[in-house]
């Protein structure tokens, strides 16, 4: 939403909205946009490793059809995009970051959200690397190699939607879809310095995506601008009987409201749990955003530590249950970094699972009370900037902790009850980027997107320089 100089729609700096406008007004051909994206991907992949599958011929065919007027030139006309490889892509096995799934059936049709984006004129160019079976916050993968952080390729992209973060941050595509069960859109958005949206649980269809933890699985976009989040989110909204938890409510467009500013929004900072156990840059980012929003009030999301524990327990047990047949028959084909965690999850008591689900309802009720007093809550997205690839331990607030379990420390208590969150990225001079969570009550993505758009217009939040 910030005033930008005209951008070449063929450049890696172009946003999805800028490309769509140029294609819709015949300033550029969709075929040229797709060709430029494929060239960038070929040039960038050796260093970034964001893609596992490139569907060049399909993309070229689709682009030619868009140019020929065969498809309605929708709001995403000619926009190249890519999806985490747990989304079904017709004709390809749905890897979900694994080696095992490659031996499975090829997808008979595209995932629901891929179909929706293409119906809006976007063009799929490929499938993206991810942590195995989405049980990951790092973006590392033993089978396909790590997706690397374009800001510093010795560092993690974040996960599990690591390829989604890396591909957008490297300018390979302006828009990518990821999944977020405990933070897997928000962690890479923070570490790669991008805008990310984890919508309300059930608001976007998950049909045609490989599951991880049904109770928490969400899908959503990662992009270089708030406008692109809203544009793609609006195109993907709507009920879908193929996903049993998908909303029955009609779509509510967010894009027309992006420029409304923050007037009338009550904004507070999350205290207590969200104000300790992180590196100073995480808290500095929240303070910078709070100052720009003139937000001084602090609120407490009660029992957030127990919420994180409950999210962990449900994830461990549901994930292990899903993969138990494969753990029995093909343990050697798992990524070593997920295998033993899944095995451990299979041995945890069922009573913990039920207690965690009961607590979920209790916590939800208490957090919704907080949202009677405020519209937006700010919290760190990650407790630190991108760790080094291969790093297993890190210091948070002076305490040595495992990287894998703790990058999602601040995201888990939020997705646990399905609240919508936008990550606003802060580019730090001389340092790595870090994100801030803009959290709203269920079905109020609009407010979170308005706040992110305001921060972007003020120059506080931005994507990395192209």
């Amino acid at each position, binding site marked *: 939403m910030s005033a930008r100089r005209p951008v070449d729609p063929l450049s890696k700096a172009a946003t999805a909205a800028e490309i769509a406008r140029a294609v819709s007004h015949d300033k550029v051909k969709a075929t040229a946009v797709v060709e430029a994206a494929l060239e960038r991907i070929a040039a960038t992949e050796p260093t970034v490793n964001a893609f596992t599958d490139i569907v060049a011929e399909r993309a070229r065919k689709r682009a030619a059809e868009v140019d020929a007027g065969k498809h309605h030139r929708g709001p995403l006309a000619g926009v190249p995009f890519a999806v985490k490889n747990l989304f079904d892509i017709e004709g390809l096995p749905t890897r979900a970051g694994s080696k095992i799934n490659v031996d499975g059936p090829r997808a008979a049709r595209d995932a629901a959200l891929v179909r929706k984006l293409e119906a809006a004129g976007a063009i799929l160019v490929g499938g993206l690397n991810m942590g195995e079976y989405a049980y990951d916050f790092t973006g590392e993968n033993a089978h396909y190699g790590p997706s690397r952080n374009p800001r510093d390729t010795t560092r993690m992209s974040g996960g599990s939607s690591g390829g989604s973060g890396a591909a957008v941050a490297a300018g390979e595509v302006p828009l990518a879809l990821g999944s977020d069960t405990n933070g897997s859109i928000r962690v890479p958005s923070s570490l790669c310095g991008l805008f990310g949206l984890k919508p309300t649980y059930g608001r976007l269809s998950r049909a045609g995506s490989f599951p991880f933890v049904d*109770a928490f699985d969400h899908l959503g976009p990662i992009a270089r601008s708030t406008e692109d989040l809203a544009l793609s989110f609006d195109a993907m909204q709507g009920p879908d009987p193929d996903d*049993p*938890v998908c909303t029955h409510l009609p779509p509510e467009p967010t894009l027309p409201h992006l420029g409304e500013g923050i007037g009338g929004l009550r904004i507070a900072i999350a205290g207590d749990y969200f104000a300790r156990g992180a590196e100073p840059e995480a808290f500095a980012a929240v303070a910078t955003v709070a100052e720009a929003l003139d937000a001084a009030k602090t609120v407490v999301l009660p*029992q957030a*530590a*127990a919420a*994180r*524990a*409950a999210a*962990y*327990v449900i994830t*461990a047990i549901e994930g292990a249950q899903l993969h*138990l047949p494969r*753990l*029995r028959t093909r*343990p050697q084909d798992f990524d*070593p970094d997920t*295998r*033993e*965690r899944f*095995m*451990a*999850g*299979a*041995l*945890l008591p069922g009573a*913990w699972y*039920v*207690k*965690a*689900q*009961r*607590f*979920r*309802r*209790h916590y*939800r009720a208490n957090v919704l009370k907080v949202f009677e007093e405020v519209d937006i809550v700010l919290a760190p997205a990650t407790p630190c900037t991108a760790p080094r690839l291969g790093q297993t331990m890190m210091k948070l607030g002076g305490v040595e902790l*495992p990287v894998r*379990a703790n990058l999602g420390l601040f995201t888990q208590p939020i997705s646990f009850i399905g609240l919508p969150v936008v990550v606003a990225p802060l580019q730090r001079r001389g340092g790595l980027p870090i994100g801030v969570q803009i959290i709203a009550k269920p079905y109020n993505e609009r407010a979170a997107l308005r706040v992110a758009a305001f921060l972007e217009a003020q120059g506080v939040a931005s994507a990395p320089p192209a």
Partner: protein
Amino acid sequence: MADDKPDVARLVDEGAKAIGLPIAPEYRANVILNVERSLMIARPLLEVDLDDELTPGPVFRP
């Protein structure tokens, strides 16, 4: 009390047998480590008291 500390290695060995999950010797130490981490991470949840009337939020719609 040292006696209260669970024998996680035994839990892993016997639990895996009970559910028919073979754990190769080279995976065993890490499985034990991850169960120990789970015990630690789950603690804040296990310490919460919930009313008997509090049931899980239903999502299944027949």
